[in-house]
């Protein structure tokens, strides 16, 4: 990689020597002035002020003052763009040299700057795509452990659901519907310009629970965390979401699931600003299954269910709430976040530190995080800017033992077979009662004695270089280069001491597991941007190339039959070691042209990207991803419509084959009594495999209404995904079970609506309300192989998915009286969210509701309690369910959730200053997350996925970590 970069840099330097042209001579007049907030009349710093039709511009100082020199004679138009303010064009007559300009707060985010290329950005009002953003203010309202939670309900077209209630992440993000069947379903995450890993590495609990030993061999049944959850939400300035190929084409073959661009906070020139946030909170179990109590049954009926050994405990007449005993913890959680930022004209900095300790509702579970970030930006002379962004993150997640299991160990596998009149609690001597029922496991013992820790260290570092190579009145040439490293090490330590009731089951009491996984992402890119703006139009031509490398190495040790129960893996008498390494190298290059014409009312964009990757069958083949878009604004249409924009965009992007889908291998990891042997690998790769290709067309209308008091964005899109990465089932008599290949076509159509309004905007009261709506439908329009069942769950008897021409792959199918029929849907009918933020004097009230009707969940947790005859409605319905000849455990799981709620109070600053004179800001707030859930679903939580992040096989409820709500009290102080 270095070699490549060096050669390109040398080539470029030669080129630029020729370009360093003499400075320009055409300076005419000077305009100076002040920028203020329209409502408060306070000065607004750091606003960008540009002269329309030129590349001339400056930035307002900390006191809102600015000076523009070299402004042409005659009337000019100044364009002011400030973060969080509406963009303003204001004409300045030839005679005026001093001006005060008032900006309006952009409550509805109509005028943000959004990223549209690898090195270029555009004002939202010119964009041809529907691009969603979530900014720091929206993130800070209610704390969340993982950044995806902070987007939930805030982006139209994003279906975000957590896979379980476990502390510390494990959340899937699905942008614009299903986009693949066997390849990755997650968007690409970019933090400060570098592509970061979102790998989900399993903890290996499967060795003990044998979840992959049953009807579904998937190893992804271990409640794994996708690693984007490491990024602390508090460090984020903004999150921008490119939802589909038409916006994300410039990210090539990793972008068909969308791109999430995260920018961390930066310092601003000015005196040091210190912010401290201290939170205290508590997590509270929000739902229980309430197993059958048998209080209406006779002792003989109870013996009929549980056997003779149930007689005596039943006659004692005591009942226990095992769920509450296990998951009723209310330990105090805390979070402390400190940041310092500031700088001068040449140097700005932002530094932060966070310490979090979140206690889970289940005993011995929780999530801790410590992080540090330093972002520094340095001007070198007038032409060069260097930025360095670094952060170090450490987290420790204890997620307990949940999800599928073949040993009746995880709580909702064990509890259905243990009657509620049997006492599981720890005895005075420290021992636990061994239930003579079911698998004989005691979840209270399991969770008290077993350890399952995921310890992650992560380092993110990025260097950005900006160089104004050449600037003349109408022309500017800029070089933007960046390099970045994202490294993490995930260490999983699991210990199952020999005393555990399930441990002797395999004849090898005691298991200790150590997994050490590390992943290194290397990124580098060089871009050139040439801007030419002669007045009548602005043309921005950019080009560049990127190199990326991802190297994941997982090494695991499993030790069983521990000598004297020693946790060290070397004390096992049965020690298994395995290693897996995945290395992918990508190279891409692109060219892009953006044209702003007709007084910036018409924006045209065209781009093409070429990409090679070692994940493809042929690592030299170049795949091309073009894009083109146009938007046209109609300002001041009428009294009602401030502005209407129509836009259309087309783009193509790809979804890379997963590592290994190109290889046809023999298995070289086994031996028999120490003699090495090669065996065939049942999955066959395709040496010619290519990325999936998504072609997306999107068109929409954006409206600004009622003098900036309302915005409405409506978008229709259609995606055609071809060359799907399919897994062909081969008749197993061939010796193989499946083969990857490209083929088929999937079509997704959808509609998104975002409506923002400020119903009340007075001096005292500001009410900002946003409503988001989205819906999408998918259909397999072409399939080169016979229809097939995906075999992604536990057999079509319970419910599975079918890939069939003309059908929606996200639909549940199941055997109804022996025939395969559609019996449900994992895709909600639509998603809708409502957020309301009301400020009244010093008080602020905020709520976010999330509504997703019509999706169905396969409730295997209920199947388990039916098997144990302990479902709370078992007497009425259980036998019918067990005898049913259709997939009765697929249940409607539509829901409305109160995602976020906050009440905050800005403490009057003079009051604070009487005893703490340095204070600048002080706020008290009470907030809560996932406080209310309204659903008909009988399981724990309609948001659930036994198989983790999946394009299709989501919504499977198999003994998940139970859901919780969180309450927080926060103090924010600034000085």
């Amino acid at each position, binding site marked *: 990689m270095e070699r490549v970069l060096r050669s390109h840099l040398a080539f470029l330097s030669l080129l630029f020597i020729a370009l360093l042209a003499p400075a320009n001579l055409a300076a005419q007049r000077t305009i100076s002035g002040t920028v203020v907030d329209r409502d408060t009349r306070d000065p607004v710093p750091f606003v960008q002020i540009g002269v329309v039709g030129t590349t001339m511009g400056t930035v307002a100082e900390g006191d809102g003052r600015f000076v523009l020199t070299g402004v042409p004679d005659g009337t000019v138009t100044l364009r002011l763009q400030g973060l969080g303010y509406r963009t303003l064009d204001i004409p300045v007559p030839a005679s005026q040299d001093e001006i005060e300009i008032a900006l309006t707060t952009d409550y509805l985010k109509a005028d943000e700057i959004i990223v549209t290329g690898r090195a270029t950005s555009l004002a939202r009002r010119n964009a041809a795509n529907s691009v969603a953003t979530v900014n720091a203010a929206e993130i800070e309202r209610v704390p969340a452990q993982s950044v995806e939670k902070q987007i939930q309900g805030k982006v139209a077209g994003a279906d975000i659901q957590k896979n379980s209630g476990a502390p510390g992440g494990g959340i899937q993000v699905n942008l614009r519907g299903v986009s693949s069947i066997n390849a990755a379903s997650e968007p690409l995450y970019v933090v400060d310009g570098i592509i970061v890993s979102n790998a989900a590495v399993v903890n290996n609990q499967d060795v003990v629970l044998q979840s992959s030993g049953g009807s579904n061999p998937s190893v992804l049944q271990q409640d794994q965390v996708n690693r984007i959850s490491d990024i602390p939400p508090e460090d984020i300035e903004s999150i921008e979401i490119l939802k589909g190929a038409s916006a994300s084409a410039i990210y090539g073959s990793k972008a068909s699931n969308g791109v999430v661009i995260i920018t961390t906070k930066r310092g601003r020139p000015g005196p040091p600003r210190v912010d401290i946030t201290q939170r205290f909170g508590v997590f509270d179990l929000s739902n229980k299954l309430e197993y059958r109590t048998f209080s209406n049954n006779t002792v003989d009926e109870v013996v009929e269910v549980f056997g003779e050994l149930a007689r005596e405990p039943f006659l004692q007449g005591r009942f226990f709430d095992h769920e509450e005993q296990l998951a009723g913890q209310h330990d105090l959680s805390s979070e402390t976040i400190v940041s310092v930022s500031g700088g001068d004209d040449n140097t700005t900095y932002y530094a932060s530190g966070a310490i979090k300790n979140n206690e889970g509702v289940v005993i011995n579970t929780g999530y801790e995080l410590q992080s540090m970030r330093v972002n520094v930006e340095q001007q070198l002379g007038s032409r060069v800017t260097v930025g360095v962004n670094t952060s170090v993150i450490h987290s420790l997640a204890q997620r307990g033992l949940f999800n599928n299991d073949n040993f009746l160990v995880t709580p909702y596998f064990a509890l259905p077979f243990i009657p509620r009149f049997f006492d599981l609690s720890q005895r005075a001597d420290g021992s636990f009662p061994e239930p003579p029922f079911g698998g004989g496991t005691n979840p209270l013992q399991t969770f008290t004695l077993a350890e399952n820790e995921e310890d992650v260290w992560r380092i993110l570092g990025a260097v950005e270089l900006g160089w104004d190579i050449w600037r003349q009145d109408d022309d500017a040439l800029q070089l933007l280069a960046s390099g970045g490293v994202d490294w993490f090490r995930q260490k999983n330590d699991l210990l199952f001491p020999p005393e555990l009731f399930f441990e002797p089951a395999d004849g090898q009491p005691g298991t200790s597991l150590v997994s050490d996984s590390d992943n290194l992402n290397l990124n580098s890119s060089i871009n050139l941007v040439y801007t030419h703006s002669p007045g009548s139009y602005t043309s921005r031509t950019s080009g560049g190339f990127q190199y990326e490398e991802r190297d994941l190495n997982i090494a695991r040790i499993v030790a069983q039959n521990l000598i004297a129960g020693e946790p060290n893996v070397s004390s096992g008498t049965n020690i298994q070691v395995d290693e897996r*390494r995945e290395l992918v190298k990508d190279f891409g290059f692109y060219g892009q042209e953006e044209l702003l014409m007709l007084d910036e009312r018409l924006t045209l964009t065209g781009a093409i990207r070429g990409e090679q990757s070692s994940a493809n069958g042929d690592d030299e083949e170049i795949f091309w991803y073009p894009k083109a878009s146009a938007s046209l604004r109609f300002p001041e249409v009428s009294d009602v419509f401030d502005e209407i924009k129509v836009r259309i965009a087309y783009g193509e992007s790809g979804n890379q084959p997963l590592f290994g889908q190109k290889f046809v291998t023999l298995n070289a990891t086994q031996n028999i009594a120490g003699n090495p042997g090669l065996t065939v690998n049942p999955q066959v790769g395709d040496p010619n495999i290519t990325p999936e290709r998504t072609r997306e067309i999107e068109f929409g209308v954006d409206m600004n209404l009622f003098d900036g008091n309302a915005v409405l964005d409506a978008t229709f899109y259609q995606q055609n995904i071809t060359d799907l990465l399919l897994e062909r089932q081969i*008749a197993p008599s061939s010796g193989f*079970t499946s083969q990857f290949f490209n083929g088929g076509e999937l079509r997704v159509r959808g509609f998104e609506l975002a409506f923002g309004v400020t119903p009340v905007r007075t001096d005292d009261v500001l009410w900002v309300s946003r409503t988001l709506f989205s819906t999408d439908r998918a259909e397999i329009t072409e399939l080169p192989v016979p229809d097939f069942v995906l075999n992604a769950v536990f057999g079509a008897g319970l419910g599975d998915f079918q890939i069939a021409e003309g059908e929606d792959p996200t639909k549940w199918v199941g055997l109804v009286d022996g025939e395969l029929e559609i019996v449900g849907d994992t895709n909600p009918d639509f998603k809708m969210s409502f957020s309301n933020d009301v400020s009244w004097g010093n008080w602020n009230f905020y709520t976010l509701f999330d509504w997703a009707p019509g999706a169905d969940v396969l409730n295997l947790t209920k199947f388990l309690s039916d098997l144990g005859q302990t479902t709370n409605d078992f007497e009425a319905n259980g036998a019918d369910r067990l005898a049913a000849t259709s997939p009765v455990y697929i249940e409607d799981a539509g829901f409305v959730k109160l995602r976020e709620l906050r009440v905050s109070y800005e403490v009057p600053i003079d009051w604070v200053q009487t005893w703490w004179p340095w204070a600048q800001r002080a706020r008290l707030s009470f907030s809560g997350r996932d406080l209310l859930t309204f659903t008909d679903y009988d399981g724990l939580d309609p948001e659930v996925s036994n198989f983790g992040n999946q394009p299709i096989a989501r919504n499977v409820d198999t003994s998940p970590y139970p859901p919780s709500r969180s309450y927080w009290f926060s103090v924010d102080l600034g000085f």
Partner: protein
Amino acid sequence: MKQANRILALLAVVSITIAGACTNLTAPDFNNPGVDQLEGAPTRAAVAAAATGLLIGARDGISEFNGYVSHTGVVGREAYNLRGDDARFVTQLLTNTLDPGARALGGAMWTERYANIRSSNIVLNALDALSDVPPDGMTPAEKEATRGFAKTMQAHDLLLVINSRDTNGAPIDVDQSLDAPPAPIASKDQVFQRIVDLLEDARGDLQAGGDAFPFPLSPGFDGFDTPASFLQFNRALLARVEVYRMNFGAALTALGESFVSTAAPLDMGVYHTFTTGSGDQTNGLVDQNLFVHPAVETDAELQPGGQPDQRFLDKTNEVTVRRLQDLESDLQFQPLWSSPSTPVPIIRNEELILLRAEANIGLGNIGPAADDINFIRVNSGGLDARGDIDAGNALDELLDQKRYSLLFEGGHRWIDLRRYGRLGELPLDRAGDAIVEAWPLPIAETLPR
């Protein structure tokens, strides 16, 4: 000047775009070797490893809780698989409602066998391409030995396939390209004929195979790990197949060339090896959910001292009662499958003695048959010898002895009763229970046809 700069700037942007395409992106598979390495340009070491790999493949799907021993034992009412987490092991298996789409149930006992059959074909093909000159190649004798080994292992895998599928048949001409349509389903007789052909071919190969195999066998083949002694194992398999085909004369001939002996230990034979070493496999029959069918206890004959059949005592133990879906048992097989490294028999002397008795019964030689049966009764069961064995009761007695001698070690009870049309003698525990006669072909096998 300005215009020239503009053009240069544009040129710079264009050239940076094009400058990219020249990077070496090779990233190999660090985890496993490619198949083409073995089939295209085989080496002695790779072929030897693939040959040893046939022993790894052969034990795959044997000892798992949803493997061959467990499933065939459950349908033959030797065992229960009382899994609270998955009741299908007490519904589908015991009510004859196997779902051919469920890989752990109706689709079981298929994929692993054919994977190993593919492996043996890869070995056979690689041998043809391999040089005759060591150290990179193998001598003609070494190749013959390896061929004989691979064909015998393939015959064993096919035998297990047809044991589970019986009259449903199974494909045999499977050494073909992945792009070819699936191989046709052969009848049970055709499959048996293929097994016999393979074993007979292998016999010739092994006889020309010199003194030693050019690859290590597992400890489960101790005593049968040279071409000559391995041939005894080959003959033992042939004897079982010929008994299954009711070719009792051929069976006796094969037994004569096998290792059957009343002078040798009853457990002498060939085994699947399991160890706790890294990369090795452990015996999954050590499973807390596997219970003894209660009929095994109630049907056990008493020894002269009044205690039950010694084989019952030696193979089962009493545990806390487990109940599931109206089934109940307080016995497990912990003494039989005592540790993760307990080997699982492929074929052993005790079975061969009983096969000899069975062949003699089939040929009407009741005297020699009674001698073998009584040998087993006395030496394995601790029972008195029976003096009243005649043509009328010899088969009943033989099947009883096979039941206890080969208890829960490979579905013998189920296969034997099926061969004689006696599956109706198996006990039914609940209303609605029924006996599985043969496994269906898996959906994955029938769908592409």
